C-alpha cells in the first residue's frame, strides 16, 4: 500500500494531478446541479405568483 502511494518516488506529481482532476470535476458537477435546483425553485415560485395574479 505504501509502495502504491509512493508512486515510485513521484507521489508529489501523480497525486496532485489526480487530486486536481477530481476536485475540479466534482466542483463543476456540484455547481451545475445547485444552479439547476435553484432555478427550478425560482421558477416554481414565479409560476405560483403568476397564476395568483391571473386569478386576481
Amino acid at each position, binding site marked *: 500500500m505504501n509502495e502504491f502511494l509512493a*508512486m*515510485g*518516488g*513521484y507521489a508529489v*506529481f*501523480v497525486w*496532485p*494531478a*489526480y487530486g*486536481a*482532476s477530481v476536485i*475540479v*470535476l466534482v466542483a*463543476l*458537477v456540484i455547481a*451545475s*446541479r445547485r*444552479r*439547476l435546483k435553484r*432555478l*427550478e425553485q*425560482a*421558477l416554481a415560485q*414565479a*409560476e405560483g*405568483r*403568476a397564476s395568483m*395574479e391571473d386569478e386576481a
Partner: protein
Amino acid sequence: MFALANPRRFLNLAQWLEPLSWAAAAVFLVLGLYLSLFIAPPDYQQGETVRIMFIHVPAAWMSMMVYGFMAVASFLGLIYRHVLADLAAKAAAPIGAAFTFLALVTGSLWGRPMWGTYWVWDARLTSVLILFFLYLGYMALWQAIEDPVKAARAAAILCLVGVINLPIIKFSVDWWNTLHQPASVVKMGGPSIHPAMLWPLLAMALAYMLLFAALEMQRIRAELLERRLANLTGISH
C-alpha cells in the same frame, strides 16, 4: 440535429439520455481509474509518472472537442437563430474551461519530473493557454451583455474566430520545435502506444466524454429554465 432544435424535443430526449449518461460516465470513471492506477504498468522510461497521461490526455482531447462542439453550436445559432444552439454553446463553455484547466495543470505536474520544468512558452503549451483564455473570454462576454440575443451573437462570433486556434494546437507539435511530444494515439497508421496503456487511456477518455454529455444536458436544462424565468418575471413586472 435539427429535430433537437426544439426545446421540448430536447427535454424529452434528455429525460432518459441524461441519467443514462451519468450512469455510464460513473461506470467508465471507476473502470478507467482502476485501470490507470492499478493495472497499467509503469513506463520503462517515465516510471509511475506515466499515470498522469491517463488524466492529462483525455482532458486535453476534451478541451478541443468541447470547443469544436461550441463552434458548431455557435454557427447553427448564428445562421438559423436557434435558441437551443446558443444555449448549448453557453452551457458547454465552463465544462470546456474546466477540462482545459486540467490539461494545463496535469501537464505541468507531468512536465516537472519529465522535462525538468512546470512550464515552457512553447507552441503547444501557449496555444492551449490561449484556448483557456478563449473559454474565459467567451463566458465573460455572455456575462457582460444583458440582452441575451446580442450576447449570443457576440459570443458566437468570438467562438468562431477562436476556432483558428484548434489546428494551431493540433499541429503545434509538428510545426514548431517543442518539448511536447507529437501525437501517439490519433495518428496515421494507428496508435503507437502499448495496449496496456492504450486501454486505460481510452476508458478515461470515454468517461470524460460521457461526463461531458451528462453535464451538458443538465446545464442546457438550467439555461432553458433561466430563460423561462426571465420571460416570466419580465411579463409580471
